[in-house]
Structure formats: C-alpha cells, structure tokens
C-alpha cells in the first residue's frame, strides 16, 4: 500500500526524524513527570502492546512523540473522552491520559465531571502548573487569585478552583495528588493509579519555571504532607478527604487522598445480560461473524 518510491523520496527530501529532542524549558516539571511515568510503566512490566498513552494539547502534550509507545495526541481539552473511547474498544490495554490544568479545568472541565461520574477505567494525570504554558502563560482556573499572568496583567480577579475538592464532589473512586519535584513519590502514585480499576485521578502539582514563579517545586516541597504519614488518615473516608484537600497553602496533602472500593467502573457497570465488556476486545470483533438482523426487522 505504501508507495515505496514516494517513501524513499521523502526520505531524501527530509530526514525521517527518528532522533528527537525534548522541547520543554529547562527545569520544567514535565521532565520529572515523564521520567516517573516511564519508570512506573517499566516497574509494572508493561510493554508496547500493553499501553496506549493519550495526550491533550499543551506543554505536557508536546511529550506525546518523545516516548517509545503507541500514543495519540488529540485536541485541546478533549483527552478524557478520547481515552475513554480507546479503553472501551480495547479493555485489555492500559490507557493513560494526560492533560494540563487549562485543558482539564477550563476547556474540557465537562469531560472531567463525566469521566469521574462514569468511572471510566483509565488513569489520568493532571499536569497542574497553574497556568497556560503552551500559549505563553495566561492564567488558568487554578491560578491563585490576584496573581499576574499574561492577559491578566493586573492580577486575576476571581477565585481559583480547588481541583481535588471538585473531583471529590463527583463520587470519585480514586483521587491522588503528588508534585513534580519528587520522582519517587510520583512513580509510586502512578503505579497505584495504574492498578486501580476505575477512573484514577492524579493531580500533579507541576513546576513551570518559565511562567509560574509563585509555586515552584520548592514551594510544594515545603508544604508537602503525605497522608500516608498521618496516623489517623483513612483514605476511604470522603469527609476526611474533603477536609484535608481544602488547604492548598499551608500543608498541601499528597498521596492517595481517597479511594472508594465500592464504586463499579464503567465497563463493569455496562455489562449486557451478565456479559462484561472487560472480556471483550471490540477491535477484533468487527466482521468476525456474519450479522443477522432478521429478529430486529
């Protein structure tokens, strides 16, 4: 099908670009996140045929072709339903979606609401750098009130959203938080998220040295409070979770903040007459047997 001649002519016209270079600013938190994700994938022993990575548009999404995996890089704000569609078609594969705070809390916040509600069994990494990096540093819905950004030259005037509080209001099954300064912590959380059978929401507080001077890695390092170290913290108790996530300034809670083992994920919930979608591979079913519609006429 591929015209070999044209392929090789293209080859001559321009190098095939098999080599790549990362394109994030130096000290960008995305390096750490990518690193941790790669580690988690390796540690979970997942290979090329086990994972599909789905990317939104934003600085983080620019990593979509800098990894040796099957990836899809969709539209700004739309990665969640895209990823849910992938998972539904092929439940065997781990589907990991990533997006920025602009994508997640503004352009596509409707998708976040319904991804949580539907409990699509995918893992989601929110790269929260508290600004729109790729479009040169405008405020996002998580930019703290009063901070100056591109297009908010006199400081933002409305309250920022508390992402975890928001997600906790939607009957989630898994809510975690980490930050881009600790690769080990991220790796650990990512692995837990990968093993969660439902919508695994992970907020990563991400350093953006270029545009976000207010909350660099050091800021979060100072406030890092791992719930795993808190004696009485019960991550199955939504009220504890709601209380603890309220604080985004003094002690910022990290770790698996909430888990609900009772929730039924989307593919299980959608079973048809006892047949779960988990046991299907719809990529192979098309045309596999002749369809007879006479009973439907």
């Amino acid at each position, binding site marked *: *099908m*591929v*015209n070999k001649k*044209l*392929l090789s*002519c*293209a080859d001559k*016209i*321009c190098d*095939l*670009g*098999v080599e*790549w270079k990362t394109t994030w600013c130096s000290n960008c938190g995305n390096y750490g996140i990518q690193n941790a994700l790669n580690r988690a994938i390796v540690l979970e022993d997942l290979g*090329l*045929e*086990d994972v*599909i990575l*789905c990317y939104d*548009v934003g600085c983080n999404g*620019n990593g*979509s*072709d800098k990894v*040796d995996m*099957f*990836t*899809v*890089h*969709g*539209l700004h704000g*739309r990665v969640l*339903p*895209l990823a*849910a*569609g*992938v*998972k*539904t*078609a*092929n439940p065997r*594969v781990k589907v990991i979606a990533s997006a920025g705070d602009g994508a997640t809390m503004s352009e596509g916040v*409707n*998708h976040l*609401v319904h991804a949580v509600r539907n409990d699509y069994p995918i893992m989601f990494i929110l790269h929260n750098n508290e600004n729109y990096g790729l479009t040169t540093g405008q405020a996002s819905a998580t930019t703290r009130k009063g901070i100056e950004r591109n297009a908010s030259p006199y400081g933002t005037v409305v309250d920022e959203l508390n992402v975890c509080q928001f997600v906790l209001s939607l009957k989630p099954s898994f809510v975690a938080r980490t930050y881009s300064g600790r690769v080990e912590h991220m790796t650990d959380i990512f692995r837990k998220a990968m093993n969660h059978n439902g919508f695994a929401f992970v907020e990563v507080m991400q350093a953006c040295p270029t545009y976000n001077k207010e909350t660099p890695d050091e800021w979060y390092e100072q406030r890092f409070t791992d719930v795993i170290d808190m004696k009485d913290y019960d991550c199955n108790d939504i009220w504890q979770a709601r209380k603890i996530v309220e604080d985004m300034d003094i002690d910022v809670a990290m770790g698996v903040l909430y888990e609900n083992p009772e929730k039924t994920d989307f593919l299980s919930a*959608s079973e*048809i*007459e006892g*047949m779960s979608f988990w046991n*299907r591979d*719809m*990529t192979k*079913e*098309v*045309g*596999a047997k*002749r*369809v007879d*519609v*006479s009973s*439907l*006429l």
Partner: protein
Amino acid sequence: MNRYQINIVGESGSGLLSTGEILVDALMEAGYFVFADREFPSLIKGGYSCFSLVFSDEMVSSYNESCDLMLGLDKQGMQEFNERIVEGGYLVHGYERLSGIADMTKDLLKRDVKVYDIESRKLAKSVGGNVLMTNVVLIGSLWKLLGLDYGLVESAVKRKFASKPKLLEIDLLALRAGYDDVKSVDKLKKIFENFNESNLDEYTLMDGNKSVALGAVLADCKTYYAYPMSPSSSILTYLADWSPQTNMMVKQAEDEITAVQLNIGSSYAGTRAMTATSGGGFDLMTESLSLAAMIEVPLVLVDVQRPGPATGLPTWTAQADLDLLTNAGHGEYSRVVMSVSSADDGAAVIQDAFNLAEKWQIPVLVMSEKFIADSKKLVLKSDFEQIEIDRNLTSSSEDLVSQMRYGLSENGVSPRWIPASNSVPYYANGDEHFIDGRLTEDAKKSELMIDKRARKVEYLVKELPEPELFGEEDADVYVVGFGSTKLVMDDVVKVLDKSGVRVGYLHYKYLYPLKLDKLTEVYQSGKSVLLVEGNRAGQFGKSIESEFKRDVFASRLLKYDGRPFYLDEVVEFIESNLNTHGK
C-alpha cells in the same frame, strides 16, 4: 397508481400516533402498500399534530398536504386542519357536542365534503369504555366506511393492545360499536373497487432512523455514542433497545463533543463506531472532525437534518446542511458526504460509509432528514443484508516500520494497524507530523502531509459510482436531487407516466465528491434538467453548476418551510417546466 390519503388530526398526545399505527397495520394486512408520516410541534403535549397515511396497490412513498379523508380526533385538530380535505372528500370525527364548529361544517359543505359525526364518547361509554377509547370507536367507524374486512382491523387492534388484555376486551367492544354505527357507505367503497391487494410478506414497515440503526448493526459497528437531539434521537433508542441482541456498546454521552471524541477514540483503537446528531450538534463536532482527518482515523457521523438556524424547527424537515457538511472543520483534507434517501437504503448507505471511512481513513458524513427519519414505508426485507466489510487494516507486523503508518503513497492512504496490537508503535498526532506521526514544522514535510491527506478524495472519486437514473432513461424531462427527494420522485415518475410524461430522476447518493458523467449525458440530451432541493440557496444545484462552470438547471423547486415535498407540488412543478431547456 391507485392511492388514497387519510389524515388523522388532533392535539399532540391525543393518541393520534397509535390510531395511525392501528390503521396502517390493518391496511397492510389488507394487502395494501402504505406510507405514513407525522407532523408534530416541538412540544411534549399540546399543539396540533397531523398523521398522514397513504395506501395504494403499488409501492408508495409520498403524500400530499391535502387528504381524501380526514379523521378528526378532537375539535382543535379539525379546526386547524380541515381545509386540507379535498373537494368531495370526507371528514369523520367524534366531536359529538358539535358546538362551535358550525362555520367549519358550512365551509366543508360548500366544498362538497361529506361529514360523518360519530357519537364516539357515547358509544365508548355504552360498552363500558372511557374517553380514551373514543379513538378506537372512530377507527371502527372509519373501517366500515372503507368497506374493508372487519377481521383485519380487529386483529390489528389486538396486536396493538396485546400487552393490556383487560383494556383490550373493552377496546374490541368499542371498535365494534364504532363499526356498527356506520350504515350506508357505498360511495366510498366504490373508490377501492379497483385497488388490487398484494402479498406483502417480503416487506416490512420501517422508518429511516431504524434503517440507519440497522445499518450500524449490519456494518458490525461495535460502539454507538450519541447525545439526544431531534430528529436523530430514535437511532439511539433503537440501538439501546437492541443491545442485548447486538452486544453493542450504546452510550448516551454528556454532550456532542464527548460523543464524537469517544467515537474517534474507539475508532483509533481499532473498532467501528458511529455517532448521529442534527445540525447544531454537528457544529459542535466539527473541530473533532478535523482531528479525525489529521490522525487519519475513520469517522462515521450521521446528520439527521432539521431546519436551522439555531434551535430552528426541531421537529420539521430540511435538506439544508450540505454546504455545512462539505466545508465544516478547519483545515483542508478529504471527506465524503453521502445521503440516505429513505428507509430503503439507510442500512446500505451506512455500511457503505463504514467501508469508505476505513478504506480511506477519512470522515464520512451521512445526511438524513427528519422526513426520512420518521416517515414509515414498506421496505424489502432482503435489502437488510450484510454487505462485505472492508477494514483495510494491516494485520501482519512483518516488514512493518513506524514510518509506514503515515507513509506517503500515490492515493494518500497508508497502512493502518491497531495500536498496541504489535510492537511497531506510531504517533497519532493532531499536530502536523511526518510519516511516523512525529511532529514536524518543516515546510516541505508539512506540505507533503497536507497533500497526502487531501489527495485521497481525488483518487476516491474515481471509485465512486455515477448517480443512478431512476424512471425513464430516455425521458422528456430530467430531475436531479438527493436524499428524500427520491421518495417523492419515485411516485412522481409513476404519476406522470400515466399522463404520458416520461420523467428521469437522477439521484445523487454521494454529494461530495461529485460525479458528473451521467449528469453530463443527461444534460446533453437537450431535455429540461430540473432541480428539486430542500433548502433556500439551492446548495446542491450550486455545487453542481460550480463544477460544471455553466448553468445546468432550467428551473429549481426549492422548499424550506420545514415540510417535505408533496407529490402534487412536484408534479405541478415538472408539468409547468416541460421543455424549457434550450428552447
């Protein structure tokens, strides 16, 4: 072509639909071909509806605004619609109080309309029934007037109310009471004397949305994602209802963008997916359309048209989204725009759309119309067979390298393999990319990729069939159209044939890209070529003339008031435009 039209009128929610369905069922049992459609407002209850039903001894697929007989379920309905009864026609109604309709009755008498007022309430009560059963009484009376076998309507009523055995008993009594109440019916009976009955075993009654839904099943589409929007919603309902039989994942999404993104995700992952909507919902999907084109993922979208702009007329019909579907979604790339014409070909068109979408890895946009979606006609069961599936997937991973996925090829199509099905990864990248999907900003590479994607349609068009000519090959006059224009034209051809006018109807199933050879032939015949199209601008005619770079159509019948083309108006249009070409 013997045909007879009954309009049933009443307030929305007054049981109009089931009354119509019983009559349709009984008439089919009697061996008549039927066609039925319903006009209703965008309200759940209230407002006036009109159920039009035509029966014939040949295949029938159109109706008129005016009817031969009107069944009035309530005063309001009659008052709204009585002017639609033809001169010399009939009105059967059960508004026994008769108050406030004197003017109407006088008017009807002037037009020689015979009025039967049935004491439907009284009769219903007399058998122990309630107000809700007056419709059944009226059905009985009507049936008597038609002079058809009582057993036919009786069993139709039985089928309708089978699930409510208690009510059924009284319903049957009410039916009988209505039937018995009518005495002399000779004149009406005579009309049907030369109607032949047929064996309809090979047929079934179907609406266009059901046909489209069946198409998805036959195409072995595994996932259906949609957001409710009239007049597309019943596709979702059909598919959801059938899921235990089909095992299809049928998901009502939270909005249109989600629906199309779920679709693209599943299609990318390697299964078949479909989504239907209407114009405004389609607008919301257009950015995603552009994504599918960029990452070369097959995408099948159905647009069941209604009149815009904005919310417009949600429960009425139109053919006005053609320019939209041809041009929407930023960027330059290949696509196909097709149209369903009726329940007859809905299933075939959808299957075709899937094969084209997968073969060429492009968006295929399928138009339907409210009129097609909701009107019911007889279709041949044998038209609902599975068409061979062409996925055009590369399964063996031998010799595969990542750089093949978007490799340059003559016709723009590159090998596609299911992600994570082997160890040869590629990037499905919405940013401009080169042959393995990796981002490029290089001028030459970008141009090559834009060319590649745009080139597909230039090759694809060669493989499409020419539009089909229905009716007379060697005609006196030709009509060009698409979509539901075929429904009315099928009848027009027959009707005009009787008056000695040979009509050829050139039906376009593929609206973009355009095939022009057959049309050129027709044009060169020197006969009038007419356009019949359901929008104001004559969008399709314009796109033909723009390709032809000359005027093609001697005259245009453009309609954009939410109503379908009526048989009589098209006949009249053609008659008044015979031989206008080159003379």
